[in-house]
């Protein structure tokens, strides 16, 4: 967790950072913020401060009554529970390019995920975070490849894990946290030098502007639906 990528340009705003520090952000969006924090020392510092603010508010709570029996119950439990030993000699941490959470979701091997192809340049693997209202996935865009033109029905957060892409507004690179709101249309293109890997979470499914793709996706979903129900 020591990789400092100097060029992080797009950061989560105060709303995302405070909701993250407070713990009220839905897991899928929190994963996006955590991923950004992995790459951004500046936001890690802000997160520390916002967590302190939470602790301060926490300590100012009206104290609730605690019965003495509750401590006794706890003492009975700690007598039998193993205590974590201090990690004094921390093993030389494998400096991972990807955040821990992503590595775990992929079981340490991205290729093991169930990737599906959309068009020639885009592969998508869904991640299950148990969030019924959002779809979270990893996107892999071929170097130089276009993502099909699409319009957002809900808000979308994208965090770049590897490589870079650009759209009509700017060029985005590793660690950037990009928010697209409902109704915005864009057409990202991965840069030529390498494939671009992103994490993305959507409030509602996107609409492909291209009708052929739309039909393709519809058929795909139709075919995939029974399997998914079984899983």
């Amino acid at each position, binding site marked *: *967790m*020591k990789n400092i990528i100097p060029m992080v340009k797009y*950061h989560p*705003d*105060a*709303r995302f950072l*405070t*909701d993250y*520090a*407070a*713990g*009220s*952000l*839905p*897991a899928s969006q929190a*994963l996006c913020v*955590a991923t950004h924090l992995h790459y951004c*020392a500046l936001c*890690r*510092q*802000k997160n*520390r*401060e*916002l*967590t*302190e*603010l*939470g*602790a*301060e*508010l*926490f*300590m*100012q*709570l*009206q*104290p*609730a009554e*605690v019965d003495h029996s*509750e*401590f006794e*119950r*706890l003492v009975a*439990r*700690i007598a039998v*529970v*193993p*205590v*974590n030993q*201090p*990690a004094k000699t921390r093993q030389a941490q494998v400096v991972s390019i990807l*955040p*821990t*959470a992503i590595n*775990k*979701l992929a079981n340490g091997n991205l290729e093991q995920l169930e990737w599906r192809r959309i068009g020639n340049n885009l592969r998508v693997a869904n991640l*299950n*975070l*148990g969030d*019924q209202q959002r779809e979270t996935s990893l996107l892999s865009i071929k170097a130089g490849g276009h993502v099909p033109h699409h319009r957002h029905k809900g808000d979308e957060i994208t965090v770049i894990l590897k490589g870079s892409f650009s759209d009509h507004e700017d060029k985005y690179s590793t660690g950037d946290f990009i928010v697209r709101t409902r109704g915005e249309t864009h057409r990202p293109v991965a840069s030529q030098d390498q494939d671009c890997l992103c994490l993305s979470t959507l409030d509602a499914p996107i609409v492909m502007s291209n009708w052929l793709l739309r039909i393709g996706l519809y058929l795909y979903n139709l075919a995939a639906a029974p399997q998914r129900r079984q899983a």
Partner: protein
Amino acid sequence: MRTGSIKTMDYESDEQHLATPTDEKVQQWITCLEQVAARQDIKAFAALFEHFSPMIKSFAYKVPALEQADSFADELLQETMLKVWTKAASFDPKLASPSTWIFTIARNMRIDLLRKQARHVVNNVPLYKDGDDDEIDLEDIWFEDENSDLFNHLAQQRSRKQIHDSLLTLPAEQTEVLAKVYLEDKSHAEVAAELKLPLGTVKSRVRLALNKLKLVVDR
């Protein structure tokens, strides 16, 4: 010589500025945690329990519309303090103050318990990946900060004091929104819905508060 003494004076006034009664308390809780870690000291643990458990319970009761709030509060208290006991060795006063560390544990535990509750409601739909092996830990998403590389301890202490003092001077409407966001498990969007305010108003109240607290988050 003279420059030397001026420097000393500056240093002293700086120390004075930081030395508040709260700091002595902070040191006390640091010592307790270290004693729990080093020799599983029950007495030190009892002191921590006495000080922090009323807040942990209160933090549990802040969740709105809870069914069986009492047992939820009991569980949160038990599980949080159990973690404090088992994880005391990983507490590092250079990274967080005791109250920040314990708040973080209580916050993560509350998220975890709320999800477990929700899981029962939604017919055992798995919340993470299917199968236990793939399940990711909440603590991988809300991870503990292990980056001491860019960490400035003194700046941290200053900001803590800054936050502490200026919280009292915030207008009520800003404190209200902050408290809802931090304590009642509500996102900005949910606070907006509850107070019947536009999301933008909630956002700007939080932003004003953060500005006052000198936690300017947006560039």
